[in-house]
C-alpha cells in the first residue's frame, strides 16, 4: 500500500502525466499537419503549412459560440476530459484494459453529444460512430490480451519495458490492430461517422451541429487520441526505442496512404470486415499463443 502511494506521489508519474497533457496536442497537431501536407502531395496539390491545424484551432476558438441546445457542449467537454485521462493512464504506465474502458467512456460521451442535439445528420453520425465503436472494440481488447499473454502483465509500464519483441509473437494481433487503427484515426475507408478531412464532405456527420470553440475541442481530443493509439503501436516494438519510433511513424504514413487510396465503405462492410479480420488475424493469434504457452 505504501509503495503504491509513494509511486503515485513520485514525481516521475506526475511528470509523465503533465508531459502528456502538454506535449500530446503538440505532437498530435503536428502529425495532423504532416497528414494534410502529405495527403495533398498524394493528390498532386501543394497543401497547407504544417502548422495549419494549430492555426485552425486558434481560429475556431475565436469564433462565436453557436449552439442548438444547452447540453451539447458539455458532452464534448467530457469527451475531451476522458480522452486526456485515458492518455494519461497509458503514458504513466497504468493498466492497459482500464485505459481501454476509460477510452470507451470518452467515446460514449462523444456519441451522446451527437445524439443529444436531435439533428438528423448528427443522429446518423452518432449511430455510425456506435457501429464503429462496436467494430473496433473487440480488436482493442484482444490487443491487450495478446500483450498480456506475451509479457504476463496488463501494465503499460511493464509491456513497454519488456525486452521480448512483441511483434514476433503477435503478428496477427498487430495486423488486426492496424486494421482498426484506420477506424480510430477516422481515415477512409472507415470514416463513416465523420471524415478526418473536413473538405471531403459537405455535412460532417457527428460534428454537424458543433462549431467554433466546441469543434476545436473535438479536434484537440482527436490529437490526444492519435498520440494514444500510436502509443499502442509503439508497444509492439518496445524492445528497441528507435525501431519502435520509426515503425510508429511508418504506420502513421501507411494509414495516410490507405486513406488516399480508398473510397468510403458502407457501414455493413466496415462492421463485417472488422469483426472478420479481428477473428482471422487476432483470434487465431491469441489461440495459437494460448496453446503454445
Amino acid at each position, binding site marked *: *500500500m505504501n509503495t*503504491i502511494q509513494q*509511486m*503515485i506521489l513520485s514525481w516521475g508519474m506526475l511528470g509523465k502525466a503533465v508531459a502528456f497533457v502538454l506535449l500530446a496536442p503538440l505532437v498530435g497537431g503536428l502529425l495532423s499537419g504532416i497528414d494534410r501536407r502529405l495527403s495533398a502531395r498524394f493528390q498532386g496539390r501543394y497543401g497547407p503549412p504544417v502548422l495549419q491545424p494549430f492555426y485552425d484551432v486558434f481560429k475556431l476558438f475565436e469564433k462565436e*459560440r*453557436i*449552439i*442548438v*441546445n*444547452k*447540453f451539447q457542449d*458539455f458532452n464534448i*467537454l*467530457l469527451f475531451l*476530459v*476522458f480522452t486526456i*485521462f485515458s492518455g494519461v*493512464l497509458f503514458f504513466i504506465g*497504468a*493498466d492497459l*484494459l*482500464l485505459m481501454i*474502458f*476509460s477510452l*470507451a*467512456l470518452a467515446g*460514449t460521451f462523444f*456519441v*451522446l453529444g*451527437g*445524439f*443529444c*442535439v*436531435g*439533428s*438528423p445528420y*448528427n443522429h446518423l453520425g*452518432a*449511430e455510425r460512430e*456506435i*457501429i464503429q*465503436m*462496436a*467494430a473496433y*472494440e*473487440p*480488436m482493442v*481488447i*484482444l490487443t491487450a*490480451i495478446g500483450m498480456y*499473454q506475451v509479457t504476463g502483465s496488463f501494465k503499460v509500464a511493464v509491456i513497454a519495458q519488456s525486452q521480448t519483441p512483441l511483434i514476433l509473437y503477435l503478428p496477427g494481433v498487430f495486423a488486426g490492430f492496424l486494421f482498426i487503427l484506420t477506424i480510430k484515426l477516422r481515415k477512409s475507408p472507415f470514416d463513416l461517422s465523420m471524415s478526418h478531412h473536413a473538405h471531403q464532405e459537405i*455535412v460532417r456527420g457527428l460534428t454537424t*451541429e458543433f462549431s467554433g470553440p466546441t469543434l476545436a475541442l473535438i479536434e484537440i481530443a482527436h490529437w490526444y487520441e492519435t498520440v494514444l493509439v500510436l502509443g499502442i503501436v509503439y508497444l509492439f516494438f518496445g524492445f528497441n526505442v528507435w525501431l519502435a519510433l520509426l515503425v510508429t511513424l511508418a504506420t502513421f504514413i501507411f494509414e495516410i496512404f490507405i486513406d488516399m487510396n480508398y473510397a468510403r465503405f458502407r457501414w455493413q462492410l466496415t462492421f*463485417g470486415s472488422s*469483426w472478420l479480420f479481428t477473428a482471422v488475424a487476432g*483470434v487465431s493469434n*491469441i*489461440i495459437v*499463443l*494460448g496453446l503454445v504457452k
Partner: protein
Amino acid sequence: MNALIFLILFPLFISLLALLLPKDMPGRKIIGTFANIVLCAVPIYLLFATLEQGPAYFRLESDVINIGMLVIEVLIAAWVIYYSVRSKRYLTVLLMAVQLITMVGFEFSAGHSIQVEHSLFMDKFSIIMALIIGIIGSAICLYGFGYMPEYHNHHPEVKDRRKFFAFLMYLFLSAMFGIIFSNNIMWLYFFWEITTICSFVLIGYRDDKASRDSAFRALNMNLIGGVVFSFGIVYLFISSGTMELDKLLRVDRGLALLPAVCFAFAGLAKSAQFPFSSWLTGAMVAPTPVSALLHSSTMVKAGVYLILRVAPVMENTVAAKMLTLIGGVSFIVTALIAISQSNAKRVLAYSTISNLGLIVACAGVNTEAAIWSALLLIIFHAVAKSLLFLCVGIIEYKLGSRDIEDMDFLIMRLPKLTAVMMIGMAGMFLAPFGMIISKFITLKAFVNSNPAMAIILAYGSAATVFFWTKWMGKIMSIRHGEAEVMEHKVSNWEWTTLGILAVATVAVCLAFPLMSFYVIDPYLREMFNRVPVVDTFNVLIIFIIMLGLLIILPLGLLYYAFINKDYKRVGTYLGGGNIDNITFEGAMASTQPIQLRNYYLQKYFGEERLSNIGIFVSLTLIFIMFGVAAI
C-alpha cells in the same frame, strides 16, 4: 439461527397477512412498508453480526418439517396437474407427475434413512444473497404499492387479484431466503419448486392467452430443470448417502460429479441460459414488479447461486469446461440479439441472460478470481437491472409504449426519470460503474485459464456497448420547443424505490473494495485458501474516474442548465430546407417532419436465427456435459 428462520418465515407471515387483510384496509400499505424495512434491516444486521465469523451450520429437528414440506409439495403438484389438465397442457402434467413420483417414492423408500446433520447454514455468500433479496426484493415490493393500482387502471380487463399478487411476491421472497439458507438439499429443492410455481402464477397474472402461454413455457422449462434436480438428489443419496450441500463438496468426485451436473442443469434452466432462454423473454407479459423481481434479485439469481455452490465439485473437469462454454455462448449470443431488439423490456431481458451467462462462465472456470468477479457481477447486476426494469415500467404507462423507438426526447418529457435511468444504464456498461469493473476482473480471470473465453468476452462487450449506447442516445436526445412534462403523475412509492436503487447503484461501486475485503474475501479464503490480489492502483484509478464523474456531472449539468449564457441559438441543420426546427421542405414543396430512428441490424442479429444457433450449440454442450459426467 433465529435470524435465518425469521427471514424465511417473516415474508411468509407477511404474505399470508396480505392475503387475509381486506384490500381497502387503510393500514395495509403501512404494514407493508414496515415489513419491507424489516426485510432490509435483518440481512444488514446479519451482515454486521457475523462480520468476523466463518460459515455457521445449524441443526434443526426436521421430521415434522420434512413431512410438512412433502404434504405441501404434493398439494402443489396436485393443483398444478389439475390446472394443466384443465388447460390441456399435457407436457406440464407429465413433467409434474414424474417429479412427484420421484420425490414421493424417494421419501417413502429412503426418507427414514436420511441423516441430515445440519439443515440450515449461512456463510458470506448466503449473506450477500440475503442482502440482495432483502433490500432489492423489498424495494420492488414497495414499488408495487404504487404500480399495481395504476396497472389495474390501465388494464380494466384484468381481474383485480391484488391481494393474491402481494401474497405471491412475499412468498417468493420467503422461498428465496429458504434456498440460500438451506444446507439440506431436500429443503433447497422444496424452496426451489416454490419459486418455480410462484413465477408460474405471477407470469400468468393477466390471465389472457399470451400470458398463459408464457407462464406455461416458464413452468415447463423450470420443471425440466426440477425433474433433473430430483434425479440428481436420488442419485446422490443412493451413491453416497449424503443429503447436505457442504458434504457434497467432500464426497468422492466420481460419485458427486453427476449429481452436481444435474443441479447445475437445474440452475441453467432457472437462470434462463441457452437453451432455456425463451421463458425469461416470455415472462415480460407480467406486471413490471414481477419482471423486475425475476430478473434482478430472485429467480435467475437462484439459478446462478446453485451453480456457484456446486461448481467446486466440477472443478477442472470437462463438465466444468462445458459449463463455461454454455455460459459463454449465452453471454455472446444474447448480447448480439439485444442489438436487434427495440422492445425495451426484451433488451433488458436479453441483457440479463447475457450477464448471467458471464456468471455461469465464471462458475465453470472456478478460480478464486473468477468466483470473485462472479459475486461482484451478481451484486452489481441485481441493483442496476432492477432499477432499469422499474424505470421502464413507469415509462410504459406514461408513454403508452415500451418500444425504445417511442422514447424520443424522453429527457424532456420525464427528466428526473431519465436521469435515474441513465444511472442504471451507466451501471450496466460504463467505465467506473459496477458491471464494467466486474467484466474487467472477469477478463483477467479468463485470460489465464481460458483464452477462448477472453475472446468471447471481447466480442460480447462490443455488442453490449452497442445496444446500450444507442438506447442511451435515444432517451437523451433533445428536441426544439417544449414537450409536456409528465412526471408529476408518478407516485411517491415508485419515486422512493427508484431513489433507493439509484443511490445503491452508485454506492455499491464506491463500496466495492469494502465489500470485497469484508465479505467476498473471507468467502474465497474459505473456498480456495487464498484471495485474488487486487491491484490497489487500479482501484484508485477507478475511484478517481468515479469521483470525477460524481463531481463533474452534477456541477456541469447545473452550470449548463441554469447559468444563462448569451450564446447564439440556432436550429438544427436540415439540408438548408428548414421550415422550423422539426420540419423541412421536401420535394414538391411538401412539409416533412424529421424522424430519428436507431439501427437494429435485424439482418445480422435477428432474434430467431441467433437463438437457434444458441440453442443448438448449448444443447450439444449440455449433452457432452452429462456424457462426461456419467462415464
